[in-house]
């Protein structure tokens, strides 16, 4: 029972991180039909900025977090305007190449700026404090991640279901041309969505830095992982990404606990089996 609970808690925390980073990727894939292999770079940028604010500027964690998210968005928006807008119109393969090229540039830039060592982000005392759950103690940080994940999915649900932006976004996902014909400024919807995706990736990158350590090669190292979450969840589906991220997080954690020698292999094997059975993912539309 203790083992089971451990797997659930650790897996859920891990899954929430995956969700925060991958949800933006999923929405951009579903909405703009762009295969953005550079998406993980936004998590890296967020993490690197947070590290820089803390270590070099000496700010506290809270300020570093907010400033890093803002910085990531400030970087992402012009990128969307200048580069991604043109990438949307390319073929799948050109998209893959262009975004791999971008990924390489991100890695090289972060390395030039911060070096290739691990970029540590210190969590405040409140998050490092151990919490006793009865069957084990674990850092408050892990519970905070889980809470934050639920808060984000609720926020996204509210945003999509209850706001005008959500109506426009859903209309654009369903059919861009019809949305545009109804006077929706799809370019603005794309820009805002891209920025939101980058912001969430930055949050995920920072909050998940304990599980997925921030360093220059981050976007390449975890690229497959993020892509798998999107593929399993179904492109463009926020709920799909959420379920896929939680499922995969728990699955990988379980594999690590139960089959430490074959964890990666069994993880991939299950993913391949799943995608063979459901090529469009859990919540994917045909």
């Amino acid at each position: 029972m203790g083992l089971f609970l451990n797997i659930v808690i650790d897996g859920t925390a891990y899954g929430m991180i995956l969700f925060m980073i991958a949800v933006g990727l999923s929405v951009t894939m579903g909405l703009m039909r762009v295969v953005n292999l550079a998406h993980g770079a936004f998590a890296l940028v967020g993490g690197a900025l947070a590290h820089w604010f803390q270590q070099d500027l000496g700010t506290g964690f809270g300020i570093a977090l907010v400033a890093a998210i803002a910085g990531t968005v400030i970087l992402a928006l012009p990128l969307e305007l200048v580069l991604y807008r043109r990438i949307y119109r390319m073929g799948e393969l050109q998209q893959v190449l262009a975004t791999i090229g971008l990924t390489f540039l991100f890695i090289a830039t972060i390395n030039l700026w911060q070096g290739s060592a691990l970029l540590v982000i210190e969590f405040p005392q409140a998050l490092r404090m151990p919490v006793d759950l009865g069957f084990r103690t674990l850092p408050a940080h892990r519970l905070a991640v889980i809470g934050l994940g639920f808060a984000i999915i609720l926020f996204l649900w509210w945003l999509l279901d209850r706001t005008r932006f959500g109506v426009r976004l859903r209309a654009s996902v369903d059919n861009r041309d019809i949305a545009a014909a109804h006077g929706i400024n799809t370019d603005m919807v794309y820009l805002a969505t891209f920025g939101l995706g980058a912001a969430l990736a930055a949050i995920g990158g920072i909050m998940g830095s304990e599980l997925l350590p921030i360093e220059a090669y981050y976007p390449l190292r975890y690229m497959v992982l993020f892509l798998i979450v999107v593929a399993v969840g179904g492109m463009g589906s926020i709920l799909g990404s959420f379920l896929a991220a939680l499922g995969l997080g728990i699955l990988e954690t379980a594999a690590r606990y139960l089959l430490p020698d074959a964890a990666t292999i069994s993880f991939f094997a299950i993913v391949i089996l799943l995608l063979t059975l459901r090529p469009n993912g859990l919540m994917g539309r045909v």
Partner: protein
Amino acid sequence: MRDHLVPIVMGLVAVGLFFAFPYDLAFLTRVLVTIVLVLSVDLVLGYAGIPTLGQAAMFGTGAYAAGLFAIHVWGDPLAGLVVGAVAGAAIALVSGLVLMRTRGLTVIMLTIAVAAILHEIANRARDLTGGADGLRGIRMQPVLGLWEFDFIGRTGYWYALVVVIVVYVGLSILTRSSFGLGLRGIHDSPERMRAIGAPVYWRLVTAYTIGGGIAGIAGALNAQITQLVSLEGFAFSLSAEALIMLILGGTGRLVGAVIGVALFMTVHHFAAANDPFNWLFVIGAMVLVVVFFLPQGIISLPGILLRHLRGGRDADRA
């Protein structure tokens, strides 16, 4: 005759390079091995239109198969190449049976995943593969019993060159055959291909398997010449770089694969010798320039320049 001119010139250049750069044979041989790998990507992606980012799966498999074969069974190089080809083709066949049922982004991701799985297996099976230390102790017998592999790499260079030529000629024949035309047909329109009665799935599986065999040969060649197999053979960056080289040179033409590799690796040789991170600046910028401005690859550059020049002259006249 015109069809054969460019390959013959490239062959002569390769012969000339041997004499011009006798101290860079290790690098030149690496270029040749990479050409074999990128030719296999060209068949799979350039002709058949299968978007792959996992050709390293077959390269690495061929390398380990040939390395293990040389250590435990027989050190004959040609037999090793055959083993590498069969191993690469087998992995491509098994994974292709699943991959070719999916499309687009899913194919791309699953090809990456297959390579990642094999990487992990090779890493775990330390007793067999040497894990992260790599597979060592490969000793090759002389090629055809006549040419001993030497320290400077002369034999290795000629051996690799002959393999490149054989693969190139083989692919020239294949891509002009009925099967090759059918692959271009599938690339253009799988729906139409089915509507003229072609079993598209099996064609793609076949193409992927042949491409896997060729990538396996590349891996085997690398193992034999460097006498080392490392986990790098399964690395994502190898697949990505192979794809980038092909796109640089231009897809769907065998010449493009050769030009792309030569260009990429030459730049790499000089621009990035010591600092892998600065190299990423170069390659990232290179990829973006090609994707945004030369979608047909470097191979199209002369044509574009010519058109601009002519256009300029026409404008003068007008």
